[in-house]
C-alpha cells in the first residue's frame, strides 16, 4: 500500500535537481530540538515531544563514543536528522552500527541531504571501530527502503518476528 511518502516522481519521467545551499552535518544541540521534533512530526504524522527530549538526553549530549544524533543544517535551519548507535553482540552478532531514525524536511528532500546525513554517521561508526551498519524499517515504507537501497544496503541475514502477547487468563478487558 503506497503511503503518503511514497516516491512521487513517475517511473518514466526525468527528474530534476534544484541547486542547493551548502549543507553542514554536525552533532545536535539543544536549540535544534524544536525543529527536529517538527521534521519527525511531518514525516511520521505523530508529535512525540517527550520521546525526543528523552532521546536528546540519551544520544545528543556531548562525549558519547557509541551514540550519534546528528543534524544537517543550511542557512541556520535544520533540514534533517539521523540517529544511531553502536550495538554490541546482539543475538551473537559482532558489534555493528545501527541507524534507527532518519528524516529530512519534506521541502528539502531529493537534494542529497539524506545521503550526507548517512555518510556522516557512517564515518562516526567507522571511527568507533565497526565494519557494518544495519537498519530496520517497515516493509511498506518504500521511500525509506529505496533510500537505504540506493546507498548500497542489502537485506541482512535476519528475519524480524512479532506476535500479539497472549491475553492474561481472567482478564476480561
Amino acid at each position, binding site marked *: 500500500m503506497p503511503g503518503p511518502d511514497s*516516491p512521487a*516522481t*513517475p*517511473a*518514466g*519521467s*526525468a*527528474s530534476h535537481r534544484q541547486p542547493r545551499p551548502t549543507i553542514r552535518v554536525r552533532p545536535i544541540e539543544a536549540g535544534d530540538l524544536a525543529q527536529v521534533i517538527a521534521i519527525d512530526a511531518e514525516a511520521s504524522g505523530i508529535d512525540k515531544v517527550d520521546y525526543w527530549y528523552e532521546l536528546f538526553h540519551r544520544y545528543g549530549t556531548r562525549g558519547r563514543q557509541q551514540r550519534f544524533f546528528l543534524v544537517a543544517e543550511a542557512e541556520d535551519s535544520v533540514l534533517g536528522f539521523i540517529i544511531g548507535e553502536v550495538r554490541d553482540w546482539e543475538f551473537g552478532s559482532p558489534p555493528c552500527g545501527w541507524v534507527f531514525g532518519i528524516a529530512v524536511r519534506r521541502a528539502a528532500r531529493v537534494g542529497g541531504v539524506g545521503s550526507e546525513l548517512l555518510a556522516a554517521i557512517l564515518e562516526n561508526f567507522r571511527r568507533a571501530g565497526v565494519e557494518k551498519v544495519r537498519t530496520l524499517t517497515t*516493509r*511498506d515504507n*518504500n521511500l525509506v*527502503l*529505496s533510500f537505504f*537501497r*540506493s546507498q*548500497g544496503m542489502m*537485506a541482512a541475514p535476519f528475519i524480524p518476528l512479532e506476535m500479539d502477547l497472549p491475553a492474561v487468563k481472567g482478564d476480561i478487558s
Partner: protein
Amino acid sequence: MRLQTSTMLALYSIIEAASHPGKQVSAAEIAERYGVSAHHLAKVLRELGRAGLVDSSRGAGGGYRFSGNARRLTLMDVIERFEDIGARSPDPGTAQTDLGLAIARVLSEIDEIAKATFRSITIETLLKLVERARRSETSE
C-alpha cells in the same frame, strides 16, 4: 524465487540499455548473450516500448535505447508488466480448509517480502550494485 523467462529478459534488456544511456543497444547481441531467440526478445522489447521504457529502431541491426528514468524505475515496475508475482494460489480444492489457509498465509508472507524488495530497488541502484561488484573483483 523464480521469474518467468520473459520477465528476466525484460530486466536484462532494460539494465543493459540503461547502463549505456543515450546509446543504441543491438537486440541481436542481447539475444545471443542471453541465449534466447530474436523473436522472443522482440516480443519483450515491444512490451517495454509500449510502456515507454525503450525506443526501438527497426530494420537491419534492430537496436533499442533506454528511455525511462533509471533513478525512479523499479524492478517491480518492470516485473509487473510481465507477471503477477503475488498471484500464487494454493490448490483450489484445499484453499478454504484451515490447513489451506495456514499455508496460504505463509506463502503470502514470502510474497510480501519479495514485492517490497522489488519495489525498493531502482534500475540505478541495481547498476550501482553491478559497479560495486566489478570494483571489488578488480581490487582482489
